[in-house]
């Protein structure tokens, strides 16, 4: 008997087809399958291989106030009350300036709350990708995020880029290859085949089959549920052939059944985290769950976390003080939570396995609005972090504020397509061959050469 179900087995045995062991007596067959499904939930030995953490900043992060072009007169003119300067404790990047789309360079500084980012930069563990967006950027949160998730800008969205990557490259993967810590799924994980080995849950405590203390001898619901949804049935696989909606729910139930064991096993094995100082907020809790899964050697290679609230049309700062307000708090939460996570990865000895990519659906307009806030814009800056990231490097060019604020509708122009960033992560970090890119990115940007975001060995 195989000790580990790979994805093809998972599909063949659990979702689509009958099993091969039809000749066995029913009870034995069921036992074997149960064992098999348990076995596949065991993490791969050693917890090896690269990990990506996709860090979604939802609402449209104002990267102009995240990575501040503090010497730029246009910035200071466009943001009379929102602007950040030395008096606010911005952290100047002193070792080098960013190349500018206007020619020359743009001196930049981190928001005062991004001390951990600065440390990573100085340690050579963070790269900054400036001027990221896509052609004809949408100013709608929902459309733009659909584009970021599907990696198919300006077309009808049907599946996600992670889903396509797994469909294409992940035949040997277990059922929890992608994990999103959230209550609702992300389009990025959606697969046209409907079989992407990804799961989404918010709280691991509830991602389990709860014992029914009132029900007498048999306490576990899992076996019953497996039966009811046809997971172990030899002939009747429990997936409707005629009813698409029902089949969808049945597959969701099968996937839930298989992945809970995997997640609970890793959480249990992970045990207590090594860093005992985590901030108390939702993002931090998501990252703690992820850290626990990594420590427990979950077979997961793509983690996804989300921090909302970046739609700062108003009260981006409170009256007169840029060291208050919504953006200030958001970046503090982001910095402190990621910092705790990174410390944990270092203590675990996993920091060299992890790459973190932050992204938002768009940046914000150059010129502030009348409500101490900023409206929806276009290009943004991305941060890529990790023990093996080719850090202390700028990628792309910093947009030309003068040109963009005055001529181009007040939104920053892009020079790096986000699909190129995704490709760089897959190709340079996950080791996906270049030949797979057309399948993963059916529509490719003009300049699709991967960025050197990983240090050469």
């Amino acid at each position: 008997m195989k000790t580990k179900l790979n994805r093809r087995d998972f599909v063949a045995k659990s979702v689509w087809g009958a099993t091969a062991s039809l000749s066995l007596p029913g009870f034995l067959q069921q036992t074997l399958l149960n064992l098999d499904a348990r076995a596949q939930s065991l993490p791969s030995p050693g917890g090896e291989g690269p990990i990506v953490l996709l860090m979604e900043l939802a609402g449209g992060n104002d990267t102009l106030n995240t990575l501040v072009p503090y010497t730029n007169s246009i910035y200071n003119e466009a943001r009379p009350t929102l602007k950040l300067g030395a008096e606010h404790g911005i952290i100047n990047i002193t070792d080098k300036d960013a190349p500018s789309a206007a020619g020359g360079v743009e001196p930049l500084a981190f928001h005062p709350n991004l001390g951990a980012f600065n440390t990573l930069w100085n340690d050579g563990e963070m790269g900054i990708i400036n001027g990221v967006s896509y052609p004809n950027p949408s100013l709608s949160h929902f459309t733009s995020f659909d584009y970021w998730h599907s990696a198919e800008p300006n077309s009808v969205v049907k599946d996600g880029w992670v889903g396509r990557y797994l469909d294409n490259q992940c035949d040997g993967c277990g059922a929890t290859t992608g994990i999103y810590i959230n209550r609702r799924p992300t389009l990025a994980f959606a697969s046209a085949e409907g079989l992407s080995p990804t799961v989404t849950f918010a709280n691991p405590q509830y991602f389990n089959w709860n014992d029914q203390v009132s029900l007498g001898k048999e306490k576990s619901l899992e076996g019953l549920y497996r039966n009811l949804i046809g997971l172990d049935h030899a002939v009747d696989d429990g997936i409707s052939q005629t009813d698409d909606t029902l089949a969808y729910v049945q597959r969701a139930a099968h996937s839930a059944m298989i992945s809970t064991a995997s997640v609970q096993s890793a959480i249990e094995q992970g045990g207590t985290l090594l860093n005992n100082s985590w901030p108390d907020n939702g993002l931090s809790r998501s990252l703690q769950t992820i850290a626990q899964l990594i420590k427990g050697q979950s077979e997961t290679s793509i983690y996804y976390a989300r921090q909302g609230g970046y739609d700062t049309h108003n009260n981006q700062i409170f009256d007169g003080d840029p060291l208050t307000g919504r953006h200030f708090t958001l970046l503090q939460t982001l910095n402190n939570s990621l910092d705790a996570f990174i410390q944990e990865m270092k203590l675990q000895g996993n920091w060299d396995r992890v790459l973190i990519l932050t992204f938002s659906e768009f940046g914000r307009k150059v010129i502030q609005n009348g409500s101490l806030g900023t409206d929806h814009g276009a290009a943004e800056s991305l941060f890529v972090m990790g023990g093996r990231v080719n850090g202390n490097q700028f990628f792309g060019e910093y947009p030309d504020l003068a040109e963009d604020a005055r001529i181009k509708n007040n939104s920053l122009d892009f020079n790096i397509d986000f699909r190129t960033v995704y490709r760089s992560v897959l190709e340079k970090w996950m080791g996906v061959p270049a030949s797979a890119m057309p399948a993963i990115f059916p529509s490719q940007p003009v300049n699709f050469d991967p960025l050197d975001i990983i240090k050469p060995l």
Partner: protein
Amino acid sequence: MLDPLPQESWTRRNANHLLQRAGFGGSPDEQEAFYQLGSEQGIEAAVDSLLETSEDWSSVPWPFWAGGETDPNGDDYAGQAVRRRDVTQWYFECLTEGQPLAAKLLKFFADHFAIDSATINQYYRQIGLLRYFETLRRHAAGNVAGEDHPFEGDERLVPDGHYGNFRTLVNHVSWSIAMIRTLDLYVSTANNINENFGRELLELFSFGIGQAYTDLDDEYTEEDVVAAAKAFTGRKIYNFRWGVRNDAANQNPPLPPASVYQNNNQQDNSAKTFYGSSSMPGGGNIVDGDDIIELIFQTDRCPKHLSWKLWRYFASPDPSKELVAALATRMRDTHDYEIRPFLKDIFLSSEFYDESVLNAQIKDAGDYLVCVTKQLGTQLPTRDAVEDIMQQLGYEIYFPPSIAGWPEPDGSGNTWLSTGAMVFRMNMASIWSHHNFNIFTTGRTRNAMAEFEEVDWNTIAPPHLRPVENFPLLLEALLGRMLPNRELRKSQVRTLYDRYSSVSSQLGSLEGVKELVRLILSLPEYQIQ
């Protein structure tokens, strides 16, 4: 297109489908009575019985503190959290106890016009929320007995309320504290335009974007967003902060606290060009927000978007563009955006009973909670339990995932079933069957399930059905109640039988019944309607 369903097609299956989609299903007796009504008096009589606008919501009054003279938020955060749970409970009571179609529409509006209490912020948050939902539920109920009622969101600016009309509803929403706060209208002035509301008005509430429902009609442009944003300037909330007076105190007549007013000095009064028009149809300049709404609702695109959304909500995820165009004509030209007459056309149409529509929806979290409550003839779980459940299912009515509400990119309902939500749904059925709430929560001492009424098991499963040899009859009775249009697979029936006989013999037949109910509620089949 939209031909009425022939009388000979009125089957129990179709009757149950209509009862489920226009409301939340019914008990076996209600199912039968509804079917007989349609058989004896015709389908239209059955549909009309669903559309009666008798709802005045008097059975679900606002929480007591809403009418008080003191700061309704309470003194501290804990007090505010209690208020928030009160609002949640009030909302779900509206869904459970209100007229079913009105409740279903209220749920639609709460999604279509989603608001976020985090941005409504501290002051008058609860009052703003309640008034907002009150406006939505009045529109959902339609004009009771044909009477117009005053619009309570703002007494000065909006003409006496005519409820149950989509265009009027958008207008009322644009004058509500909750939306003015959520989408930043209160800070948008002629000199400092904030485009948030203008953009979402076009994208979410009216025109929509993309080609899913039309490829004939132009999309709005960024210039249109700016024009709309300029038109909606100067809308302010009077005395918004408790104890703080502002210039509206001098308004004549004086305004009650927390009402909305137009500050003429902060309004952009310029003539605008919008969606290809430079003047109003009857002549005159395009100036304010009311003008913009009037123009939007005359376009071809707006009724298509709204018809598409309503069809997706009541019927199926992927209506054809031809069907949407036919619906849009009914919505705008035949019914002038009156919602119930439009829905009547949908419920009578043969398209609504197509095989691709039946059972094509996943119950959203609200559907699930209301259906299970009604089917088991019980009441809602305790206030705190409802909030906890909805947090896990991703349906916190005042914290939408985004201001687009609860979006469904993959077709109707799919996004309701994250893996975690699926697991939770399969587990949580025992809340109803076994009062087993404690395992779904930690550190909550408020969730004493003693105040949650026990299901009347003698009605659900009369004792004469409980002997193991009567299992087929028992199962038939339970499925007729909970899964009327479904057949289970043999292997499922076998598992249910094994479990029923095992638990019954160990713990007695009542425990067997509870277990059976729990397992039926946990089935993938139960997640669908």
